[in-house]
């Protein structure tokens, strides 16, 4: 208490987390507009599960429950899980996935600040491996009736085909991977009901809303430019190269950037400070790696989107990236450090 500094910027982990939640609001609003209020149910389920799991773990770990619950980090994890899951997934799926994220991916590794993996992406990957069918069950465009959606969520049974649809990425991949169809990217995008002007129908607008929220986070200095720019830039660059070489089999950069989890990931997931790289160059390498893996998994992999796997795989590399990208210290830019006591 007696040592300097005696003044402090009025900022806290809580403020940072609340700003991240606020920045997600435009995306959520557009989501509701296009796909109905089911997403709000999912957010509520995930939030409740996250707070309950967090409180239980804090109690077990004998940490001050009120202090850590108020930091808002569990809510951010919960909202990101809800936004990456199908909005009509059964209630138990999102609850168990969120509990897994909070209990295993966060608290068993030491809680806030200690988790090497992004908890939301752990939840996504665990669920898509364990329940691939449920995780591919997305609402069809136009299926916005709230009571019908709530019935699908709570009546633990597969939704009718009439109300579900593959995601744009899934649709494109499946069509391209069916050789007898001899489909081209342009042909698929033009024919399928799931596609809109530049990406997925509705999804492209949600992505743009995420972009708006992300830019606000940048302006608020909650995140730096490195991760979004490197991620979107590298993703667009690879997509450009391949679509220029073979536009029939590879989707273009615009499609990649506004589809799937790209925009949400660029500003809200890959920017997670705890599990990401911290040095400026490290952030660029980290985000470029995520982008590369995302594109590879999207294009050649078995899963519709590669964002979650890309993030987890790059999380693994963070200690190495940080170690290798330490920037030079003031006065030591031309040589080695020679710090001596």
């Amino acid at each position, binding site marked *: 208490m007696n040592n*300097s*500094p*005696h003044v402090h910027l009025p900022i806290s982990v809580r403020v940072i987390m609340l700003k991240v939640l606020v920045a997600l609001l435009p995306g959520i609003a557009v989501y509701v507009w296009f796909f109905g209020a089911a997403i709000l149910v999912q957010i509520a389920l995930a939030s409740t599960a996250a707070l309950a799991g967090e409180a239980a773990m804090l109690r077990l770990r004998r940490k001050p429950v009120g202090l850590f619950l108020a930091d808002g980090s569990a809510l951010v994890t919960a909202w990101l899980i809800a936004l990456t899951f199908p909005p009509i997934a059964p209630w138990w799926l999102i609850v168990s996935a969120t509990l897994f994220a909070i209990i295993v991916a966060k608290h068993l590794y030491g809680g806030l600040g200690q988790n090497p993996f992004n908890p939301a992406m752990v939840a996504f990957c665990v669920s898509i491996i364990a329940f691939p069918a449920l995780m591919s069950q997305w609402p069809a465009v136009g299926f916005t009736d709230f009571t019908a959606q709530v019935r699908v969520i709570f009546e633990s049974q597969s939704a009718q085909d009439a109300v579900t649809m593959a995601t744009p990425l899934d649709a494109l991949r499946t069509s391209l991977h069916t050789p007898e169809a001899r489909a081209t990217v342009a042909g698929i995008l033009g024919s399928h009901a799931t596609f809109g002007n530049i990406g997925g129908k509705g999804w492209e607008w949600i992505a743009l809303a995420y972009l708006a929220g992300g830019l606000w986070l940048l302006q608020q200095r909650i995140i730096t430019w490195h991760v979004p720019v490197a991620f979107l830039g590298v993703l667009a660059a690879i997509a450009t190269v391949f679509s220029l070489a073979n536009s029939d089999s590879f989707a273009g950069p615009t499609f990649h950037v506004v589809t799937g989890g790209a925009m949400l990931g660029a500003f809200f997931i890959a920017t997670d*400070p705890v599990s990401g790289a911290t040095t400026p160059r490290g952030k660029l390498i980290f985000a470029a790696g995520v982008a590369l893996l995302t594109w590879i998994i999207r294009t050649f992999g078995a899963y519709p989107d590669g964002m979650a796997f890309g993030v987890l795989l790059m999380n693994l590399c963070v200690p190495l990236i940080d170690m290798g990208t330490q920037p030079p210290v003031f006065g030591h830019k031309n040589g080695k450090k020679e*710090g001596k006591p």
Partner: protein
Amino acid sequence: MIASLFSFKGGVKPAAHKDESAQAPIAQAPLPHRLVVPLRQSAGGAPLPLVKAGQRVLKGERIGAPEGNFSSAIHAPTSGQVLAVEARMLPHPSGLSALCVVIEADGDERWIDLVPTNYMTESPDALRDILRDAGIVGLGGATFPSHLKLKPGATGRIETLIINGAECEPWITCDDRLMRERADEIARGIAILRHIASAERVLVGIEDNKPQAIAAMRAALATSEGVEVVPVPTRYPAGGERQLIRVLTGIEIPYGRYGTDFGVQCFNVATACSVHRAIDLGQPLISRIVTLAGNVERPGNVEALIGTPIDELLKLASPKADTDRTILGGPMMGFALPRTDLPVTKAANCILAASPALFPPQGAELPCIRCGACTRACPAELQPHELYWFSRAKNFGKAQEYGIFDCIECGCCAYVCPSNIRLVDYYRFAKSSMRALEREKAVADAARERFELRNLREEREKAEKAARLAAKTAAGRQAAEGAAAKAAGAPAAPQAASPEEKPLPALDEQKKALIAAAIARVETQKVGVQPRNTDNLTPEKQAEIREIEARRNKVRELAKTPPEEPI
């Protein structure tokens, strides 16, 4: 010529709070009844006391002689009587004690005979000696002896002289007021410093939130060729020596190197002013300007004698009722005083009354979320969050590798940390632990060396003794054999004994007894059971003696201060 400015990375912009204390002119603090003048007030060795209790001193009389060249003299701030020369608590974060001269003021303020010097006719070496003997040290806070900073470095010469009037720390305005009111004196000091260093150009850096100071300094320096007043952007810690040098010249001075090695040197404006007084007027450094601010009714600046009790000084500004602690220095780098009856030293630039409302206690410390705010704020371009992990884990090797000693403890990282982590405390802990380890290692190394030398010496002596003994025995035998041979009438056979040893008669019984006694003596010494004159006393007496011994050791401890810690 308009110097193009460089920039340093990081930094923060805390609320300045300078207007409160910058309004009123510098006031003269009343003469205190009693002054406590610490002998060690600069980096380097502690000056030796030149006065004894009971002795009368004049204002400006030398009471502490610089020990060697790496220290600076101490003077009586006023005339009066020396009451004591004893260890007293210093204004230091750890409540360190050291030798102080306690003077009772007689109220006459009788000066010694002041001898002005014409600096144009003196050699730089002679001028540096005058500065050392006048006790001139850096008044920006580091109190590094100025005469040492004026020594030419590796490049041979100081080309650029930087005068630091940035005063970046919030609340503090002593340099601001000094520049507004005594710009001419500062200008004269700058001329002397420039003469000693034979510097080609002088850049006076002042943060652009002090327009009056900039105007006053420009007016005072208008006629000086090659001297330029440069407003620098207001961003803490722009007044850090290395940061200001970087901003004005683009040169980055790494930890462990001095500006002179790069042809540049930096002095505070108040130091320049005291250089002028020391040379042109012959006055040693016995007072300084102190900002009184914070939770007070009448904030302002006072000129206070070194040794004035801090609480007496703060009373001049009338601290408000809810003041709960007193901070020496600014809110970014200052420390809360363990007691307020401690003396003002040459380093004391500001006394801040603090209250919970003004400097609210920080919230609970949360885990680091690696957000990187500290990295963006660090002016030393370190990775504070990494240093935090290493310091916390006591992984000192890694902390050093990541440059912990480049940390200037400016507090920017802790200022911006959303997790309320007291980062600087962790670095202070790591640094002091490493210094302690280093000291222990040095002591252990010295002990090991001593032990090895002793072993070598003993072995050598043993071997020499054995050789001598062998020679003696051989010689004795030879002599005996020779006698026998002579007796037998046969010629003596040539012997292998060393020729320089004189033949001696064989060892007789008496000699053997002497040797045995000597060996016994050595044995007792080795075991170390030399009886002492205290061994036959009663347990009570022995306990008393132990107590006295402990007190003596304590006094010895108090009398010396660790050499690295600047006061």
